[in-house]
């Protein structure tokens, strides 16, 4: 760094001070308002306001306050309970599978002594993340189709000879789990790996000297030390899982409507607003219920999780 520049600036400093009366903490606070203003505007318009507006819609009908009517109507809809059951079945299978397998794979990858092997494994687990969204579902349409699938023998073991059999309504929670795991597990494995990597070497060394086996070390030392991150994974996965939309939507389209268009709650909210009913108020009521679950999980984590207390 050349030293000339600062001296030059020093000459200008008094001038600036005179021109601008704001100094020190005041100037900083003023700048902070300017710096954060653009983001805060977006936060209000696309974070806070939509929630408030949906809340308003869910308690009104044509601008009149109607209490819980929209909620009663939404819950009373014959499609509501099945949608809840579908999402719940998926959530249970998905969260258990993800938690067990992602943690196990992270432990295994972390225990690999050969460096390139460990990094290659993490890389391979992670690439499918690029397909998050519609593309992964499209790809799995092929994989679940016995006539083109590279694993058609697996499908045939289960007795499926065509696509429509393979995507039977009862198989969907499992299928969505496989798709979600294929796309999303890699990122979680990397996060768990990083958390494991953060455990101090002395602790691991001590366990090794005491002759603890890999399984005992994992169970008594590693898992308790990364439990916050496991909890984080569970909470986020529950929050994301409740929002199920693209997977059943695309599969429904591919199945010639063997799968209903209101399979999940988010789909139900969508067809309530866009279908023949065009009932934005009931749709908002369903959205609010989903949002309360997601916000509740998020709040629990922000205030109790202990992962974000940098402040």
């Amino acid at each position: 760094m050349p030293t000339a520049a600062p001296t030059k600036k020093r000459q200008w400093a008094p001038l600036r001070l005179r021109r601008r009366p704001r100094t020190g903490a005041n100037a900083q606070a003023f700048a902070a308002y300017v710096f954060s203003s653009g983001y805060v505007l977006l936060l209000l318009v696309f974070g806070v306001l939509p929630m408030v507006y949906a809340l308003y819609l869910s308690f009104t009908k044509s601008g009149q306050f109607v209490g819980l009517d929209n909620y009663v109507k939404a819950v009373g809809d014959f499609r509501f309970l099945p949608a809840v059951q579908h999402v719940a079945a998926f959530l249970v299978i998905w969260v258990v599978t993800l938690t067990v397998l992602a943690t196990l794979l992270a432990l295994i990858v972390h225990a690999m002594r050969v460096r390139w092997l460990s990094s290659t494994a993490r890389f391979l687990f992670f690439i499918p993340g690029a397909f998050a969204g519609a593309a992964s579902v499209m790809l799995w349409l092929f994989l679940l189709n016995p006539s083109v699938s590279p694993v058609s023998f697996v499908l045939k073991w289960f007795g499926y000879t065509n696509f429509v059999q393979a995507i039977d309504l009862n198989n969907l929670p499992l299928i969505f789990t496989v798709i979600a795991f294929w796309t999303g597990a890699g990122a979680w494995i990397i996060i768990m790996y990083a958390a494991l990597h953060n455990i101090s070497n002395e602790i691991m060394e001590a366990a090794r000297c005491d002759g603890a086996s890999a399984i005992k070390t994992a169970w008594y030392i590693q898992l308790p030390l990364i439990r916050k991150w496991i909890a984080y994974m569970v909470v986020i996965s529950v929050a994301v899982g409740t929002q199920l939309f693209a997977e059943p939507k695309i599969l429904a389209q591919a199945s010639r409507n063997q799968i209903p268009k209101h399979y999940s709650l988010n789909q139900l909210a969508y067809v309530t607003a866009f279908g023949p009913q065009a009932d934005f108020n009931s749709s908002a009521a369903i959205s609010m219920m989903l949002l309360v679950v997601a916000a509740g999980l998020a709040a629990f984590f922000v205030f109790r999780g202990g992962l974000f207390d940098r402040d």
Partner: protein
Amino acid sequence: MTATRRSVVRSDFAPGRWLGRVTAFLIAGFFAVFFVLPLVWLLLAPTKDTAQLNGFHGEASLSFGSFEQLVANWNELVGFQDGRIWTWLGNSVFYAGVALVLTLLVSIPAGYALAKTNFRFRRAILISTLMVMLIPNTALVLPVFLEINAVHLVGSPLAVILPFAFFPFGVYLAYIYFSTSVSRELLDAARIDGAGEFAVFRRIALPLAIPVVALVGFFNFVTNWNNYFLPFVMLPGSKTQPIQVGLVELLANVREINPTTVASDSIPFPQLALATLISVAPVLIVFLFSQRFLVAGLTAGATKE
């Protein structure tokens, strides 16, 4: 040190341990195949015609067809509704690109302000950012739609670009970066030298923040490029859709799925596979070449110093 460790390793040499290790490798190997096999299949599928893909003449499902067939599939896919796929790709680039610029313009300064200044609404902004960050994108899609609908912006590019540009995770990443990697003393030194607040940010903080700018940019681009639900709801016309929504529209033109498809518009499976590959190509490239960046972002919270 190495000597003791070696002796410890040697004492590990027990049948039970070996069994454990082999099991662990088998599990890791099985999942490596599980994650990679679909990708390999997808890379090979566009090089075949429908008969080859179905293995009517005994072709293995993981075999390579021919380059000629790949070119033929590509030409036919591009020919679908006069190059509609280019329109969709162009839309994706436009929406994700403009949103990326806006995201960087608003979230980097915001992260900086939150990390380095005490101001009145700092805590409120920080907590709401964390909250919205942890709420899945999809939970807000219908509420945002209802709002956009109320101001009659449905169908406008702004209806996707502006929500795309609202990226709390980016603000969180910038906030963490500025709080841990840029020292307050450095900024104060510049202030003593007479730099104003905006000069401090532009000349001192911003040059130091290049890594986090790239990180926020990557994550924002990947998230928005792959977003399906929001553009699907906001943009009803086929010509304004991004590629992810267009991809699902192609599905409606697959004869095996929708027998009523007009023959001229019909999309065979190999072309659908090619379209799937193309639809994620930019993100896949980002993943392949910037893996380190993405990993750094994912683990931003996990590795606390």
